[in-house]
Structure formats: C-alpha cells, structure tokens
C-alpha cells in the first residue's frame, strides 16, 4: 500500500511534482503513466525516500520510506537499470545488496535464476546489454521478496520474450497479494498488464482509475451507424432523431455516421422509432494508447515540431502541391482520430465524450487552438532545432487533415 498525500517537489523554481495524491493498493498491478518529464521518476524517488518532498508526504504501509522497519524486505525497486557499478559482477552486486539487507546469500542465486542471468552472473555488468541490465535491476528488486514492488520502465530494452516474462511476472506478483507499481511508456504493454492506472502530466494527477474506465472516459468510444446509401433522406432523419435524443452525430465521408453519447441499443431503438433501416451499427472502442494521447496531449513537455528546413529547400515549381505531411508530425494534439478513412471529418472535441475524466485539471476550458496557454511552470519550450527561430512556438503549420478545433489546450487550474 503506497499512499501519497499532497506530494510536491520543487527543484529551484521548477515544479516537478505538484500536489499529487493517490493510493496504490495491494493485489493489483498499478500502471503509472505520463509524458516524458511529467514527474514519474521524481515521484518514484520520493516514494523510496531518495528525494525529500518539498511538501506533502508519501508513505508505504503507513511509514515514510526512511522510517520503514526492514525497508528492503518490504519494498523492492527497479529505478534505473544503470544504477549499478559497472565494474562489479552481477553476483557481487546482488550479494552486497543481500548482505546489506540481511538476506541469506543463497537468495542471490535464486533471483539470478528467476531473471535468467545465472549464466552471466560472474561477468561485469558493464558489458551487459540494456535488457540484461533490466533483468539485473529486477533481480535486485526481487531480492528481498518484498510486499511492495516499484518498477520504473521495466521493459525498456527487453526482447519480446523478456517483455512477456515481465508482464507475467508483474501479474504473478500482484496475484500473490503484493503491491505492484509500474511506470511505462508502452501503452500496449500497460493495457495488457495493469489493472489500475495513475496518469500524471506536468507533475499533476490527471487520472486515477481502472484501465477500462480510463479508456472509456478518455477515448472516443463511438458507434458507427450506416443507413442505406440509396436513401440519403433517411440519414438526415436519423441524425436529427439522434441529436434530439442527446447524442452527437458526425457524418463520415463515405456516408456513415459516428454517434457518441448514446449506447448502441438506444441508437437501434431510435432508428426503429424513426423508421430508419440500418445497414451497420457497430461499436468502436479506442485503444489505451489513444485514450492516453487524448488525455495527456495538453501536458506534453517535449513535443516535436515540423522540420521546416526554411530557406534550405528549392522553391516548389508553380502549381506543384507541397507534399502531404504525415499525420503526427509537428501537429499539436495529433492523436489519431479513430481511423476509418482518409480525409474524413475531424473528430469532435472531448466535450463530445460521454464521460469526462473526473480528475483532470487540464479538462477545463478550451481556448483557441494555438493560443499559448498560461503555464505556471513557464519555461522555455524545448524546440527542435530550426534554421530560423519560429515566431510563434505554438503555431506549427496545420495541414489540411489536422483536427482543427479539437485541441484541449492546457489550462491549468491555478
């Protein structure tokens, strides 16, 4: 059980974590998500007593880490695969930790077997690949057979077999009644591993809910409805009926309709009442990745911009079209709208989403896209190197297919 209350960490005038409160409960894998620089690692370090919080506190089993009795037997952590002395062999590294924690030395060989490093146990860890380093770090975390486990990016650098192993390991550890807290960038991995999610952005809590809740709250689950192509007036009729019933309708280019805000049976009922035949009525659920992108798009600190190569390119011959940019390049909020067809209508803003995230300080007002939002952590926005300094950092060229009006810009509550 990890409990953070009002956790805040400032480094000089930069606030890395602000007023973070959450609980990580035993018996489940809790995923810890957030963009780069959002304060995940800082939070992990504060949980482990390595950094002192500027305000608030975090406890494990009711104690701050540094006051925890038998800490290494209650908490195991993989913080950083490189947090070992490279000149020491894997076995010596683990042995020194075991001795420090009062763990029998034979446990070292046990965990080396568990992580599959027994054959290279005598080799200096300097020569280890990233994946082997991760395994060594996981071995160190498992050494004390602890009740609480923290893993910071455990699958970084692992091969597919290793990723599967870590996934099963996390689940097995949680099934034994342990508290497992895992940070990761790999959304697909989290979707498979985690039961519960804690999402932070710019050091603040964005969401604390189960994975399924998170996906449905933050992604555009929608129903695709298709009326007979031959009778366009039926389409109009259905659109009107659905809007009247409180749903949102977006026409798709090929004649289909995207409906949000209404469950599928209700749509069917409405169609039936309106005497409209349906050719298609299908549910579309977004992935965790899409939900995550949608939620954190306003909280991303490091965003790439379009490589403009200004002044370096040959002028286009008259009449030639500039190449179509690949979606996702230099567009704020590029998270892919659910993709049925090219050039379709932009998907609606999150206000069309049925359930809004409860704990989103970024979920408020929607200022004009491109307007630099007031940011208390104002710092020079990291810019990809460009030949001329871009005049307005938040106004990269918006290609025609960009979702024009759906940018939930960060609007800090304070």
């Amino acid at each position, binding site marked *: 059980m990890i409990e953070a209350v009002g956790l805040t960490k400032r480094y000089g005038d930069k606030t890395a974590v602000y007023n973070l409160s959450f609980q990580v409960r035993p018996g489940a894998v809790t995923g810890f998500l957030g963009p780069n620089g959002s304060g995940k690692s800082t939070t992990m370090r504060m949980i482990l007593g390595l950094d002192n919080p500027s305000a608030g506190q975090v406890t494990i089993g009711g104690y701050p880490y540094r006051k925890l009795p038998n800490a290494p037997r209650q908490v195991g952590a993989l913080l950083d695969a490189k947090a070992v002395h490279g000149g020491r062999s894997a076995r010596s590294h683990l042995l020194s930790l075991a*001795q420090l924690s009062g763990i029998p030395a034979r446990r070292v060989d046990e965990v080396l077997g568990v992580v599959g490093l027994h054959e290279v146990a005598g080799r200096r860890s300097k020569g280890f690949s990233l994946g082997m380093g991760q395994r060594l770090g996981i071995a160190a975390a498992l050494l004390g057979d602890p009740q609480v486990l923290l893993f910071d990016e455990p699958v970084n650098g692992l091969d597919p077999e290793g990723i599967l192993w870590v996934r099963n390991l996390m689940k097995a550890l949680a099934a034994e009644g342990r508290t497992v807290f895992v940070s990761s960038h790999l959304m697909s991995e989290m979707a498979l591993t985690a039961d519960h999610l804690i999402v932070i952005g710019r050091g603040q809590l964005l969401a604390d809910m*189960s994975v399924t809740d998170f996906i449905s709250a933050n992604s555009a689950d929608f129903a695709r409805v298709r009326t007979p192509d031959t009778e366009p007036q039926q389409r109009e009729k259905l659109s009107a009926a659905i809007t009247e019933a409180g749903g949102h309708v977006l026409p798709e280019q090929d004649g289909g309709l995207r409906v949000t805000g209404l469950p599928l049976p209700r749509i069917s009922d409405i169609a039936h009442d309106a005497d409209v035949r349906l050719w298609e009525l299908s549910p579309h659920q977004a992935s965790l990745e899409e939900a995550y992108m949608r939620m954190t798009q306003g909280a991303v600190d490091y965003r790439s911009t379009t490589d403009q190569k200004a002044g370096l390119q040959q002028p286009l011959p008259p009449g030639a079209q500039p190449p179509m940019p690949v979606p996702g390049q230099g567009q704020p909020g590029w998270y892919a709208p659910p993709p049925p067809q090219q050039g379709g209508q932009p998907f609606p803003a999150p206000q069309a989403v049925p359930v809004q995230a409860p704990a989103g300080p970024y979920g408020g007002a929607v200022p004009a896209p491109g307007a630099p939002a007031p940011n208390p952590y104002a710092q020079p926005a990291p810019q990809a190197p460009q030949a001329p300094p871009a005049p307005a950092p938040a106004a990269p060229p918006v290609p025609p297919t960009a979702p024009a009006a759906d940018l939930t810009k960060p609007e800090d509550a304070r």
Partner: protein
Amino acid sequence: MSTPPPPMPQTAAPDWQAAPGSPYPTYTSPIPVVRTHLGHALASEWTKIKSVRSTLWTLGVFALLVLGIGTLTGLIVSSSESDVGGESPLALGFFGLLLGTMCIITLGVLTTASEYGTGMIRTTMVACPSRGRVLLAKALVFFVLAFVVTLVCASLVGFLHVAMLEGNNAGDPSGEEWLKGTLGVSLYLALLGTLSLAIGSIIRHSAGAITIMIGAVLAPLVIALFMFSSSLQDVQQALFEYSIPNQMSIFYANSLSESGPSGWDPLWIMLVATAAALAGAFVLQERRDV
C-alpha cells in the same frame, strides 16, 4: 522470527474493486526477516570494495610504489658506501609512501564518489535507508583496508632498509621510531584516505574530489616554496610545517623545521580534520536528495 504484519492505513477505499479475498491482501515472505545493523553494512561494503578492480589497481600500484621506491633508495644509499651517521634507516621509506598517498586518496574518493557516478548509490540507499550507517560502514571498511595495506608495506620497507643499510653506519631504530615509522604513518595515511572518502561523499564527483585532495596535499608546499617576501615568512613557515608531506616526514623525525608539529601531532591533526569532514558528509548525506 516472523514478519511483523505491515500496518495498514485505515482509510476505507472508495469504490475500489477489491482484489479477490480480503480487501487488502498481504504477502508474507517465507524468508526470515533479520533486523539489520552495522555489521550487515560492513559485510556489504567489504563485498563491494573487494569486487571492483579499482581497489586492486590502486592498492597494487601503492604497494609497487612503496616497495619499489624503497628498494631503489635503499640500493642507491647502500651502493654509495656513504656514511649516514647513525641516522634511522626507516627515514628512507618516506619517499615511496609520499607517492603512495595518491593511490590511497584515489581509492578513498572512489569508494564513495563512484557510487554517485554510477547511480549505485540509489540502489544502496533503497536497500538501506539509514544513510549514516552506509557511510560509516564505508569509512570503517576503507580505513581498515588502507591501514593494513600501508602497515604491511611500510613494515616490509622498514625491515628491508635496516638490512640493506647495515654497512652504512645506520643506527638501530628505537622502538618508538619503529612504532612511528610503521603504525604511526599507516594510521596517518589511512586517515588521509578516509578524509578523501568524506570529501568524495561531499563532492559526489570522482575527478573533482581527487583533484581537491591532491591539491590539498601539494598546494601548501608548492605555494610556500615561492613565498620569498619576508613579510610572508610566517605564512610560509606555517604552510611548510603543516603541509601534509611535512606532517608525514615528522613520523621519520626529519621535518623541514624545528618548530611546528612534532612527535605524534600530525596524527591528531589528521584525526580532527577527518572527523570534521566525515561529520559534514553525514549531515549533507542526510539532507540531500540522492
């Protein structure tokens, strides 16, 4: 011994889909829980210090310097057939040990600073949240190691010189001279290394801490060499007398001057300096983020 049940906060969790079974399942490890103490940290630090190559290299070079230079100076003096006039032959061991200080300083700094450089310190601090215990264990393990190695090398060189210089009218060293030339200087060097260890823990950067320590050893002497102005004579004198090489030479009774520290004084000076640096390192380590 059995695991004390981890205290659980009483706050009821709102609408949490509880894991199967009790709302807060707990896991109890079958491995017996031992209350850790300084002894565990000492064992751990001993494993650490002996399992890196830099220990072997620095101490190997140290032994090579002390024994090699000792043998060479002994050979030169004994082959010159000069008359040393009843002086203690132990004094010839000074040169090797003076160069050897560089190795002891390096090892002392690396014992702490390399953990910061590699990030190992975070792993260590997670395994042992009592930070002071870790630093104390490091200091003790290093001190004993450096002391034993220096004592062995200094004693060997002492015996060698006594045997080599028999034909040069060298005096027979008294018990006090033996004590100072082996035990005294070994304690002094081990303390100097522990001071470096404390500086390494404060600076947290290997190269920076080594530079500081080498500067502390050499700079006073070098600066004093160029103080020609008579108004600076007192400063020059103090720098000479309290410079670390001169303090070391006092153990061999061949100080640069007659005034200043004498006898076992250098040991007490170094003891105070080391204690102060270690105290600073303790305080900083408790407060700082790792």
